[in-house]
């Protein structure tokens, strides 16, 4: 059963932050609630004050410029991202990822900020955004700071935010030329969260790999950079053999936990396959990108 709470509806982001500052850990932000209401129903979260930011349109936007790159307001719905022609043009992997996230109903109401704040290691957006060097801007009543997604997750369902902070914006830097990002999750049903997932970015300099990011989803307690796999790729003349080796490296360094869906061994096996495939797919995309 969901426990009782006092419902607060701030009229602005500033007001919301003041409420957060006042109530600290007794307060909880709700936006789309697509993840939050489930865990509240299970009694895992029992806030005294619910601060509803769903109507803060000032935080719902999709902006792009050549210098700063992509900025998405925290209360932007998954569906808005999925349907954005701008994002499809500039960062198509985000649209591909959103198309397979949960269901249309969840995407219509749930938000990118809420998803990232929930900190589910099996969540789809975090690996993709991390692979693109993304960050979140978090705000409190006393100011703002930018946290790279690399550093945003600290433990299972835990972020680097303080009790009085909330995500206000998601930022993705402009894509360098000859760069591609691809994402795939392994699941039994089409829109399930991944048993594991891999997001890969390859940036080329001529025919060599200038930069690589391999980010693993649900292969550890938090979204994880497969840095050994990246080392295999960076500076290499890419080929199937290199991708194979990168996959093996990712499989070795990840820390998957067994559950009823897959053993640890099989998860490593899947990481090996997905890392290999996504690195190659990202490379294919990088080759043709401007």
């Amino acid at each position, binding site marked *: 059963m969901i426990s009782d709470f006092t419902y607060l509806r701030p009229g602005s982001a500033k007001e919301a932050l003041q409420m957060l500052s006042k109530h600290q850990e007794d307060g909880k932000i709700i936006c789309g609630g697509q993840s939050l209401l489930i865990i509240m129903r299970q009694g895992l979260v029992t806030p005294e004050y619910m601060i509803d930011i769903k109507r803060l349109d000032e935080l719902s936007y999709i902006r792009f410029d050549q210098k700063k790159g992509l900025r998405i307001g925290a209360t932007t719905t998954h569906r808005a991202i999925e349907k954005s022609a701008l994002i499809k043009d500039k960062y198509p992997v985000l649209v591909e990822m959103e198309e397979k996230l949960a269901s249309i109903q969840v995407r219509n109401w749930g938000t990118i900020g809420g998803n990232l704040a929930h900190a589910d290691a099996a969540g789809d957006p975090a690996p993709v955004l991390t692979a693109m060097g993304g960050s979140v801007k978090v705000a409190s009543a006393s100011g703002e700071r930018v946290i790279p997604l690399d550093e945003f997750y600290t433990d299972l369902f835990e972020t680097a935010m303080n009790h009085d902070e909330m995500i206000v914006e998601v930022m993705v830097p402009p894509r360098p030329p000859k760069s591609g990002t691809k994402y795939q999750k*392994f699941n*039994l*049903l*089409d829109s399930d969260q991944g048993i594991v997932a891999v997001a890969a970015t390859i940036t080329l300099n001529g025919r060599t790999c200038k930069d690589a990011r391999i980010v693993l989803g649900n292969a550890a307690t938090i979204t994880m950079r497969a840095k050994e796999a990246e080392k295999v790729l960076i500076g290499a003349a890419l080929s199937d053999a290199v991708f194979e080796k990168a996959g093996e490296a990712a499989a070795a360094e990840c820390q998957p936990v067994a559950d009823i869906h897959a053993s640890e061994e099989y998860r490593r096996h899947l990481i090996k*396959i997905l890392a290999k495939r996504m690195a190659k797919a990202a490379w294919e995309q990088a080759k043709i990108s401007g």
Partner: protein
Amino acid sequence: MNKYTVINPHEPFRVLNTHVHNVDGWAKVTGRATYTFDVKLPGMLYGKILRSPHPHAKIKNIDFSKAMELDGVKAVVTGKDTLGVKQGIWRRYKDLCDEAILPVDKVRYIGEPVAAVAAVTEEIAERAIDLIEVDYEVLPAVFEPLDAIKKDAPEIHEGFERNINVTRHIEWGDVDEGFEEADYIREDWFRCGGQAHMCMETRCAVSSYTPDKKLTIYHSNQSPYYMQGLMAGVLGMREGDIRVIGPYTGGGFGGKFELDGAIFCSTILSMKCYRPVKIVFTREEDFIATKRRTPMFYYSRTGVKKDGTFCAREAKVFTNGGAYTGMGATALYLTGFFHSFPYVWKGYRYDGYRVYTNTLPSTSMRGFGAPQAMWCSEQQIEWIAADLGLDPIEMRRKNAHQEGTILPGQATIASCGIDQCFDEIKKWIKSKGKLRANRSIGISACGFMSGGIFNWFDTPYSFSSAVVTINQDGTVELHVGAQDIGQGSNTTMAIICAETLGVKVEDIKVHSGDTDHCPPDLGAWGSRQTLMTGNATKMAAEDAKKQLLEFAYAQSGLNIVYDLDIKDRWVHAVARPERGYDFGELVKKALRGKDGQKIVGRGYYTPHRKGMISPAYSYMLQGVEVEVDEETGKITLVDSMTAHDCGQPINHLGLIGQLEGAFSMAAGYGYLEYMPYEDGKLMNPNLVDYKMIRAPEMPPANIAEIDTYEPEGPYGAKEAGEGLTNPTAAAIGNALFHRFGVQMKECPIRPEMVVNALKEKAQKK
């Protein structure tokens, strides 16, 4: 999207097998259909159940004083508030009546009800549950049948040595001689998983016991009559003082024709406080505390001649019965029987052992033991064909049942279209041409019963009954006890009635789902309603028609050599159809001839001398095209073909819906619906972790309908929709076998198992 073809189409009927809308359609597509889930009665309370956290424990004491003190709590009940009757649906066999839903002495599975609370809101009831203190003496528990039969295993039910709950033996012909004749013998062990019914409407009931000692129950179930009888037994009441109403029902699939915690606890609560009490299971409760498909360990030894003629088979099966019998005894028999299907054997022998364990009781689920039987049989047969270098389809065809086949002591096959099913599958495979490199096709054959001949419920009533009443304006009331759980029985009965009477479906009002107003009927299980209630309906309509025509003959003064018939509401001479009377006008006149009494026709059906299982059998061939990602083991269903013989189709839209729906459930059993237990606890009691086919996973379901004629069925009809739940898992396994040569012994097949099987195969090389 799908292709639908008909082979040997019968002469078209006026109403039968035409495109008729489901008679409950308007209610369902406008949100007006009221389910038990929606029922609200004045003064109604909400009930919640306290469940055992232990798989095996004695109940020493239950202290619910704190719960009673909570404001808004009106009643708390435990086993002490009941008569302590151990009930079971096999009423005739007292030793199989082993379940007191609120036990007095001990609990035998995690999730078993221990106490129940009724309060003015659901939330208060939930808080009250947390305040009940139960003193348990935890007992050692056992979870697997092969452990439970060991000498030192804990005793789950008193008097059942080695926890063996039921045994069954089926034998015909000379098995040993058959094996001696065989050129090739193969034996295999298999493991079949359980499966959850996963009805969209969870178990729920609203019970109202009033001071005049009468009980009214709204309950989501497959047989109001069974509920009435079973509740009378556990309460020591007369059946006639209990009314069971089955409103629109949100699915059953074999899990809703026994007493459950919702109907039982809500009744006991209501009896304590004399107010209506509603209990609705959460989805989690529906997973952990309603019975499931029976997991089984199968040993099968099969002997064939080198030309592929089947000689002998012997099978030994241990089933995981869980904590109580439920419908497990029937599943134990049927799995052994259908493991021989659809083939002729010189000798066949089956020994089945149902074993108690401290897990969720297993019971009937669509297919009733046959999906497990076919998982083993149809894959083994495929492997035998490969071992002998024979065509797997022709080898099957050579041994298949035919019209007139006799299974000694068990059944006589009166209609059988399986030969043409083989033709259609071959056509489909041929039409597919060369498949993509990562795809392969698997096929599997099966047959199934159209209702059972058994009366373990010990009813003195006909198995099905129907009453047809004609109103003065020609509209018709049809009263049946058949329960529509989504399979469309209301529509099927309306169609049969309309066809027989010569009127239109929209003239028929079907009454079902209420023991106060409808005749008793064993209900919706074992694929019985089309054949049995259909026969009753046809008989009742014929009775009414005869009475009306008696009057019409008198009215018309027709020469003795001519006859009358009714078609499209027109009563006419067959030889001169233009001469006749309007149905409605004739009925009104006929009333006067009957002293103002409406024409009432009665019909009923009980199978007599129809073997040990069923009066009639449907047949089907399943083909599935499967894509497998060799590196990850992921299985995707790409296309499918079902060639199906259900005799004479009655409900056209219903038939297609049943075949497509059966496929999705059967395929789920084959590769998705994993139900793992750990120390008696279900590990995935929710819809995130329990995987089921959704729209993107469902492949096209092409159908070839083979029309045959079943003499025992109404207009020649047999079942459709349960038989097809049986072969699909094996077809998927066979697709994998064809592509990779791996033999999958356990279902559901998960991708990790595929990867491991491929690895094992590579290592063997």
